[in-house]
């Protein structure tokens, strides 16, 4: 997906004015947080599991080479293949090459954020291969030609009405020419259409939620069962995923699994959690003959050994965006790249560069809700602050903001001057609202300064 994060400001403005989107977001704000709260309350061990998850991820990242190696050995012993890709381009080319080798014409796809990250569908289409999204949300978006707006519910910005229109438009040529308005009927129609695709596809591509080194296993979690049909029916299964999904053992994976669904949707478990370890065995009655794991670095290794390494603990549960007031106001598309919400604001600068994404770490009220709900305790606000500093140091912050900040720093280091300036500013603000902040005052009232300054009062009461 080509990043559009530089346009965050205008995209956010459009999102706020988009009534259909605002309706969809309203629904959203009341759903997930309450479900998560209940699920967490029902598991007294939740906090202890979070602590364990942090230990597990930190350990794994510190020994990532070792676990990548163990994982690869296991997959190869089972008859599968692991492909190492430093860049999105390498990953795209690898997947296309495997599909070509199979003579693939259609591939079914489970939901994969890494797939979005490397713009896999476009690459497949360019190679003359038809990708078919099978997750209902992703399928809707493929028809609408839109990117996902949420990492768990990719089409949550779409209303039922819009889905009805899309299905009517795209399914009429397939013989479904009645506009369905009930959710149940829409789901049934998609089920019927996708059913034959699973069995006709030459290759199935899925993501992975976790990789387990000791088992050589990819763990795939869905509620719909589309991931399992995608990986089991075709002759070839490709897992496209990234290096930080690794955990050492099945016991370690269990800790993360117990946190994932509760944090994401408030379920105790998603309906389907599948550990797949290699291709079909000799006497098996089903399963793919070929099994490939395509492992993407894509800028992640640059975070290893830095202060921002904690980002690689992320299990992509979506809780941070579900609880984020900024995401709740503008939705996911405004962020302009695959990962929206707080995790996107913290991670995207590392993956697509700060120049493209400098607005994202600014899109925070610093309320801290994201860090409070994150199952792996990523200090997201601290990372926003890091990127803001970086943007300033690297001269990415625009001239006007830099100058204002510099002026403030100049004054703040000179107390007498500062006091005089503050008194002047307070006098001015009593007369009229401050200049240059219309964007802010349009939506809120700027409080008028009252009485004497804190500083003056402090001195009067005998402070020093």
């Amino acid at each position: 997906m080509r990043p559009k994060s530089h346009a965050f400001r205008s995209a956010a403005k459009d999102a706020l004015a988009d009534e259909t989107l605002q309706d969809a977001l309203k629904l959203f704000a009341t759903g997930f947080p309450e479900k998560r709260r209940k699920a967490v309350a029902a598991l007294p061990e939740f906090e202890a599991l979070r602590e364990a998850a942090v230990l597990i991820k930190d350990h794994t990242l510190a020994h990532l080479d070792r676990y990548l190696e163990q994982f690869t050995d296991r997959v190869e012993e089972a008859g599968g293949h692991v492909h190492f890709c430093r860049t999105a381009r390498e990953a795209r080319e690898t997947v296309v090459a495997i599909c070509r080798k199979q003579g693939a014409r259609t591939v079914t796809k489970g939901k994969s954020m890494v797939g979005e990250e490397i713009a896999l569908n476009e690459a497949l289409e360019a190679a003359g291969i038809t990708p078919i999204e099978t997750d209902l949300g992703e399928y809707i978006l493929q028809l609408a030609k839109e990117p996902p707006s949420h990492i768990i519910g990719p089409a949550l910005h779409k209303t039922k009405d819009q889905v009805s229109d899309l299905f009517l438009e795209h399914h009429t040529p397939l013989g479904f020419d009645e506009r369905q308005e009930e959710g149940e009927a829409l789901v049934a129609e998609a089920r019927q259409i996708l059913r034959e695709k699973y069995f006709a596809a030459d290759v199935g591509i899925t993501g992975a939620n976790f990789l387990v080194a000791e088992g050589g296993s990819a763990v795939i979690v869905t509620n719909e069962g589309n991931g399992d049909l995608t990986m089991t029916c075709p002759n070839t299964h490709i897992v496209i995923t990234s290096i930080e999904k690794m955990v050492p053992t099945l016991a370690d994976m269990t800790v993360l699994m117990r946190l994932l669904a509760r944090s994401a949707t408030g379920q105790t478990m998603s309906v389907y959690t599948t550990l797949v370890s290699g291709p079909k065995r000799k006497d098996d009655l089903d399963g793919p003959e070929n099994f490939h794991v395509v492992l993407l670095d894509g800028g992640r290794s640059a975070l290893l050994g830095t202060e921002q390494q904690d980002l690689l603990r992320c299990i992509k549960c979506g809780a941070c965006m579900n609880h984020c007031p900024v995401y709740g106001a503008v939705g996911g598309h405004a962020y302009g790249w695959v990962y929206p919400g707080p995790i996107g604001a913290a991670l995207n600068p590392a993956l697509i560069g700060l120049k493209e994404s400098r607005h994202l770490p600014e899109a925070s009220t610093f309320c801290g809700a994201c860090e409070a709900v994150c199952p792996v305790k990523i200090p997201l606000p601290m990372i926003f602050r890091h990127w803001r500093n970086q943007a300033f140091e690297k001269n990415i912050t625009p001239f006007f903001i830099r100058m204002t900040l510099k002026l403030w720093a100049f004054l703040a280091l000179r107390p007498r001057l500062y006091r005089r300036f503050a008194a002047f500013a307070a006098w001015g603000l009593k007369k009229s609202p401050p200049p240059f902040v219309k964007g802010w005052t349009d939506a809120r009232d700027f409080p008028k300064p009252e009485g004497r300054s804190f500083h003056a009062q402090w001195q009067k009461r005998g402070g020093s």
Partner: protein
Amino acid sequence: MTTDRQTFLAHIRNRISHREKPELATPRNWPSPAVAKGSREERIARFIAQSKAHKATIEHLADRQSVEGAVCDYLRTLNAPLQAVAAPALKGMDWTTLDVAFCTAGEGDRVSLSEPAFGIAETGTLAFFSGPKTPVLLNFAPEIEIAILSEDRIVGGYEDIWQRLNPAHMPRAVNFISGPSRTGDIEQTMYLGAHGPKHLHIILTGDQ
């Protein structure tokens, strides 16, 4: 096109070389939910309650003799044909009324009979290990899945499952299934039967 394994790993090694390297104890004694450790009766009761919470239906029979009758009765309530594809693992049971084929499921099969390796009380989850007698698609292709599980296969938590697997020789697929297929992708409303089975019926049998 890809980076070769040694170069890739060397790059990672290089990145992490100057970090402290926290070690983890083996075996890992991570906190596990209290509800994952119960007596046999508690496990069975929790398994049943949690399965229902996931919208599976469940029927508790005293023994395996009455399974076929229960399967047929259940299919009649759904107006489904008395015809099913079944796990070869179930060959040993008596099937006379029901038309059963022992194979994996294909595109047109409506009903499957499956045999989970275990039931997990903690979350009301069925655990399937793929193999020649337990094909995977029985759990995904049909619209109606009937899983036949005996009481003494109900374990407390996921730890009990790992104890029974050798990580160096995993089955091709381990499937954990908690209720029938569903989606929340349209306006966050839940609809059953997205791609996998719309109905998951568990027949739990006693010891005899």
